[in-house]
């Protein structure tokens, strides 16, 4: 078996530097690699391009990197709920590329799976299609989208084993599996790190071959963005 465990977050992030492209799993604040984001925000690196469905909130998630102005460009599908983000974007400090959420997921999957490009109907006829090849298939227009090309992917999983096999929980799964193996180096933080053989081979969401480094996260705050409840009646 090929072990992927690293001792700590420092070792997990070895090799990161300014001007790199990073992918971050997560939807809103759910399933984000909190430990990696916290550590990266403590490093003296900047001019980062970040691929992430959302941009966190002012004081959590990618908001931490935005506050420290480490991000040069964001590639996301939805960036509401972050005032500092909006300020940097409108002032021109931050370059923002907004793309459809399904296209974002598939550009990750294409990178993981070795497809250079794919045709999707999403965004045809909109700003998103500008400069992209458009093509008719069976009477419906599609645009050509390309695979992402990232240096590091930062992933949050629920359980993982020492060979890098991963299981995600609930909707914290989201983009995380699609980003595994999509960057040159995939770094995974898990809530529970187990010995090889602990996980049912039939129930693994992402096989370890897509993972280069795995470690047990020190602390997961798992902040809730919109706490909605119903009364007990």
């Amino acid at each position: 078996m090929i072990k992927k465990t690293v001792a700590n977050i420092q070792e997990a992030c070895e090799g990161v530097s300014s001007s790199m492209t990073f992918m971050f799993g997560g939807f809103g604040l759910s399933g984000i690699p909190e430990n990696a984001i916290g550590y990266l925000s403590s490093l003296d690196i900047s001019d980062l391009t970040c691929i992430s469905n959302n941009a966190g909130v002012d004081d959590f998630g990618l908001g931490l990197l935005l506050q420290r102005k480490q991000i040069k460009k964001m590639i996301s599908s939805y960036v509401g709920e972050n005032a500092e983000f909006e300020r940097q974007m409108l002032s021109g400090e931050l370059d923002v590329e907004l793309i459809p959420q399904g296209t974002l997921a598939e550009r990750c999957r294409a990178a993981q799976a070795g497809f250079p490009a794919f045709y999707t109907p999403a965004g045809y006829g909109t700003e998103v299609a500008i400069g992209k090849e458009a093509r008719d298939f069976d009477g419906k227009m599609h645009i050509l989208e390309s695979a992402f090309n990232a240096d590091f992917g930062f992933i949050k999983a629920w359980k993982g084993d020492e060979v890098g096999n991963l299981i995600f929980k609930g909707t914290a799964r989201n983009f995380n599996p699609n980003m595994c193996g999509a960057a040159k180096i995939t770094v995974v933080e898990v809530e529970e790190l187990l010995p090889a053989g602990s996980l049912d081979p039939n129930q693994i969401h992402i096989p370890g071959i897509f993972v280069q480094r795995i470690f047990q996260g020190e602390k997961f705050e798992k902040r809730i963005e919109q706490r909605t409840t119903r009364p007990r009646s």
Partner: protein
Amino acid sequence: MIGLDKNGIAKRIAKEVKDRYYVNLGIGIPTLVANYVRNDISVEFQSENGVLGMGPFPFEGEEDADIINAGKQTITTLDGASFFDSALSFSMIRGKHVDLTILGAMEVSQNGDIANWKIPGKMVKGMGGAMDLVASAENIIVAMMHTNRAGESKLLSKCSLPITGVQCVKKVVTNLAVLDVTQNGFTLVERAPGVSVDQIRQSTAGELHIPAHVPEMQLD
């Protein structure tokens, strides 16, 4: 404000949800639709962040940060639910496995274009999953107020804002009316209770086809 409130719009749209439909609900008014779907039919709600078979909000104290909907709200799941990754979620959407999509809009044009993701220079939140949804869904209903806060019509001959998708909206339900998008532009189908055809005509900037008889909505 005349006509329906948000819950009224949701209530009317709920009547469009048929037995055995898989439904994707957008943020805002569409989310409310789930509250009004008849309980004698079988429906499953999909949320593009990776869940099928969504249930109601959790009881206080039972919120789980790992179980949310696309509006980032804490939710629960029902028997038969499943979780999946974003790529598979959009396979459901792009592959036309979802039967009905209900979403909000800033503008709809008479040919079915929709704008709901960006006000240049002012508000740029992003399209989220909306562009994928409108590009692929065969059955799209827009839920929105008929006019904006300045009183201007949101049903236009042509969208003034950057569009989210072309010629995709089939039906619009507003506080004033139910309208189909047809080759004649908007066709008035129903009036909200107490709203006149004239009021609807005055609030609609796009081409509006008005049949001889326009019934009032039945909400119950």
